[in-house]
């Protein structure tokens, strides 16, 4: 029987009258890497803030290690490595001081994980965090989280402000570490091209709703893009067959989990006669944008 490290049940949140999401449900299994994905402003960081007890939800609940999110005990917090959005860190410390500071809070602390990464980066130990680039700071924060040897890592928008090289470095180190330690990970991001080989399960949230909740590889295999030309206006809403439809002039792209013939039949049933429709091979980023929409 699978053990859930994070259980999110019927979560609703509003900022005033603005509904962030309604009835969000997901579980994160022990040892799995779970992607909480969505475009900017869809509520990913709000979910993390609720999860870590910095925000009370309008209704519903999130439990971590069986504890309600707003009542997480210090002992449970010691099991959670949290990367804050923007790689927030105590900027008045230098590389050495920040390691010394955190080391006394965590019983399983392994300073070698941190210093290995710092040495690979060629970072001087007296380098002050306030003088670092965002990429360098991200590695310091990752090194600190790894040295904590947490049972659960929560990484909020790890990609923010990082160029492709630092994103790749971050993911490679992370993947290596979590595979070795069997760490459970919840990762949020709006840039997903680096996550293909990392994530096991995913939930993709759109405005006020869940767009997708499934195994990540299954999503990549079953989600299709079909392109065709059509003279005239097609006015279709997303439903069970059509996840999204995009158009530029008379060039249309339909995104769907259905096979090509099912989509053609569906279009026919809507009196849209298509002569030639081709399936387009998608990158992960194409699939993500296809699902969430460009706007």
């Amino acid at each position, binding site marked *: 029987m699978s053990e859930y490290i994070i259980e999110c049940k019927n979560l609703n949140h509003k900022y005033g009258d603005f509904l962030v999401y309604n009835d969000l449900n997901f579980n994160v299994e022990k040892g799995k890497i779970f992607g909480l994905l969505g475009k900017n402003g869809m509520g990913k960081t709000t979910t993390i803030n609720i999860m870590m007890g910095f925000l009370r939800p309008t209704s519903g609940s999130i439990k971590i290690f069986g504890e309600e999110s707003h009542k997480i005990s210090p002992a449970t917090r010691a099991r959670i490595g949290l990367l804050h959005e923007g790689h927030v860190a105590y900027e008045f*410390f230098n590389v050495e001081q920040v390691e010394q500071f955190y080391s006394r809070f965590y019983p399983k602390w392994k300073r070698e994980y941190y210093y290995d990464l710092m040495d690979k980066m060629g970072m001087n130990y007296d380098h002050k965090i306030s003088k670092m680039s965002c990429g360098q700071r991200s590695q310091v924060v990752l090194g600190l989280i790894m040295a904590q040897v947490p049972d659960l890592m929560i990484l909020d928008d790890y990609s923010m402000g990082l160029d492709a090289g630092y994103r790749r470095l971050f993911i490679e180190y992370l993947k290596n570490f979590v595979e070795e330690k069997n760490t459970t990970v919840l990762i949020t991001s709006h840039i997903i091209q680096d996550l293909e080989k990392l994530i096991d399960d995913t939930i993709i949230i759109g405005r006020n709703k869940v767009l997708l909740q499934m195994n990540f590889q299954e999503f990549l295999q079953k989600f299709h893009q079909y392109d065709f030309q059509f003279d005239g206006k097609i006015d279709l809403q997303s439903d069970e067959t059509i996840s999204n439809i995009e158009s530029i002039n008379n060039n249309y792209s339909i995104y769907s989990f259905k096979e090509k013939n099912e989509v053609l039949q569906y279009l026919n049933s809507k009196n849209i006669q298509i002569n030639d429709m081709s399936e387009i091979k998608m990158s992960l980023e194409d699939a993500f944008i296809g699902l969430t929409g460009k706007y």
Partner: protein
Amino acid sequence: MFKSLFEKEWIKLRWVLLAYIIIGYAAIFSIGSDLQYGIKMHGAVKYWSNVITYHTNFFSILKYLPIFGAITLAVIQFVPESINKRYRLSFHLPMNEQKLLIFMLLFGIVSMLLLDVLIALGLFVVSGMFFPSDIVSISLVSIVPWFLAGIITYLGTSTVVIEPNWVQKVVIGITTYFTFELLMAERLFTQYNNVLIYYFLITLIYGIIILFPGHRLRKGSK
């Protein structure tokens, strides 16, 4: 854990604390040289008579030092913990959030008090070189409300920096200002004895008020 917290506060505040004591002793030096000059110019009898009869405050240069020190201390201590929602780093540490906040505040208060005691000691030595012990002891009692105003200003400024709600920030800021005005009201320097106990009580209340924004930040708001 507390060793880590101590080091963190020390790294942030060491230069401010050093500046505070240097400025404090510069002020004491200035008081000493003014006294020396005054007595040389007017004669010891006339100078003493002025102080005793007209309650001339010869150490007023110290009046605003604790206030400026307190504001600087609170800003340097809590702004780096608050900008970019950085308070979440501290509140994710595996320890009780109230203990954490109390430790940080105690570090600030105890540091200020220690330096205030050193400054008071300087005043004691310098004024003892020119005045009898009665005047020296009254002088020391007279600077206590200024130091307490410093503590209240520190607590008030810290609360304003930490408080996430802007309305409450303004309310606390205004309340602190009026409390500060009360403590800094012009009095003859022999008239503080009866009110000191109330000043201590006000300071204690401020120490409790600051725990609320910290609690709200950690426990989350809707």
